[in-house]
């Protein structure tokens, strides 16, 4: 346990040294979300949309999306595919006395904490400066369950990114696949707009995919839009997804390691 603590601290120092990079990542998320808010300012101002959304509730949603995107969305798939698998850095990890997935999990956390804190600060500033009313669940039990939904959502995103990262065992040029998956995720996670504003068939795909549990469900859980029973159901589905993704990861990892060859490391 101590060694993982040390890895966390080491990577925290690393992430902190590169905090300007985290800030730029955060700025990109802020710009994307601000643009959509500005758009809704014209498209939804003064009227209630379908599914009960109006402009203030949309702003509240996007502020949560800003925080959730920077706190709950890991970005280690490019490093795994390029640095570890294609350039052979993986062999160094394989010789170390801890599991690769644990190492990746611990080393990603500092980036999420620093990115997430930028997100929280920006959201709080927006709330204070623009007097935005943010909808938050008032019941402490609901909040506790919402934290579980968010934590498990992070785990789903983490396992999913691990899986697409290790696709590099089989596909050498993987950038096109990453871009395609990113675009699908932006829509199905609820980053573009709340899922229940999308056409029915896209909603259906989103709800049966793991993507909606990464960002959308944590947001509406914190906003208090789910009852406690629905929250428990969401946690159950998230656990199922985590189990399934973990099994897929293990199968692919074992098969991939048999294919992996590194020279000169």
């Amino acid at each position: 346990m101590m060694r993982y603590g040390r890895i966390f601290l080491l990577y925290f120092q690393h992430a902190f040294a590169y905090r300007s990079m985290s800030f730029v990542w955060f700025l990109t998320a802020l710009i994307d979300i601000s643009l959509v808010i500005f758009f809704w300012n014209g498209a939804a101002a003064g009227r209630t949309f379908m599914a009960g959304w109006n402009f203030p509730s949309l702003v509240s949603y996007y502020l949560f999306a800003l925080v959730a995107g920077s706190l709950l969305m890991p970005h280690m798939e490019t490093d795994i595919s390029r640095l570890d698998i294609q350039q052979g850095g993986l062999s160094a990890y394989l010789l170390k006395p801890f599991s690769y997935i644990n190492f990746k999990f611990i080393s990603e956390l500092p980036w999420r904490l620093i990115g997430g804190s930028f997100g929280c600060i920006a959201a709080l500033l927006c709330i204070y400066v623009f007097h935005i009313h943010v909808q938050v669940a008032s019941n402490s039990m609901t909040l506790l369950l919402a934290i579980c939904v968010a934590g498990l959502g992070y785990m789903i995103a983490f396992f999913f990114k691990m899986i697409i990262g290790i696709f590099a065992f089989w596909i050498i040029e993987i950038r096109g696949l990453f871009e395609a998956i990113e675009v699908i995720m932006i829509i199905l996670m609820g980053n573009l707009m709340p899922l229940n504003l999308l056409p029915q068939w896209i909603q259906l795909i989103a709800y049966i995919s793991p993507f909606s549990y990464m960002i959308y469900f944590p947001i509406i859980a914190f906003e208090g839009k789910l009852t406690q029973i629905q929250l428990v159901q969401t946690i159950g589905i998230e656990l199922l997804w985590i189990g399934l993704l973990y099994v897929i990861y293990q199968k692919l990892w074992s098969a991939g390691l048999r294919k992996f060859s590194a020279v000169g490391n």
Partner: protein
Amino acid sequence: MKRYFNIYKALLRINFANLFAYRANFLNGMIASFVWSSFVIISMTLLTANTKEVFGWKREEILVLSGTYNIVYSVFYLFFSRNFEEFTLRIHFGQLDSILTKPINSQFFLSSWNVGYNNIIRFLNGSWFLIFMLSRMHIGFSFITLLLFFITLLFSVSIIYSIWFIIMSIAIWHSKLSNLVDLMYSINGITRYPDGMYKKSSAFLFIILFPLTLVVTTPARILIHKAQFTDIAVLIVCAGILLYISHKFWNFALRFYTSVSS
């Protein structure tokens, strides 16, 4: 000038030959271009699904804006964006030293070495969508319209190039910012929306973003026959001023460049 033209012709040839040497890379780039250009169209279609008119633009006109966005940025990405992706790395790893010692303008070298041919797919994706939308809106286009469209497109690309170059020059002071280029890709998103959106949000924001609001809306206005002479004139003046500033700012930034290898 002729020397630079010849160099650029040679670069185009070398980059074209690279396509066949790195076919998988090219295919990946094509997929990425197709996916992102489709995303621009799909996301705007979804965002405007419940809207007939917003910021003085009808829904169909906003979709024309998305098609124009793809065409304008396909040209920019084709000629420049890959060079900007390497910009911070060249500075961070001290490769700028060797560039500065070459008998060639460093701004030209940094901006023109790589050509992203895969972005032709973005151009095609934007073109078919534009033709589809314009025919659906029963808007025809003459030779003059097309000529004006391509002229404004060139000035739009010049504005985008200048803004990218000015911001990327910050890497001279902060070379660790290897993801600065990702921020620029996000800033491009500003031009996807009608200019009235920024006017409505804040006058200050509109002034700051003014040159960016022109780059897609002006060519799009030409296609839907809503452009005025002043729109085109303002675009051309902005392009000239920004190109001049980018050159001056780069020379100013170079004074602070501390090489890593020497």
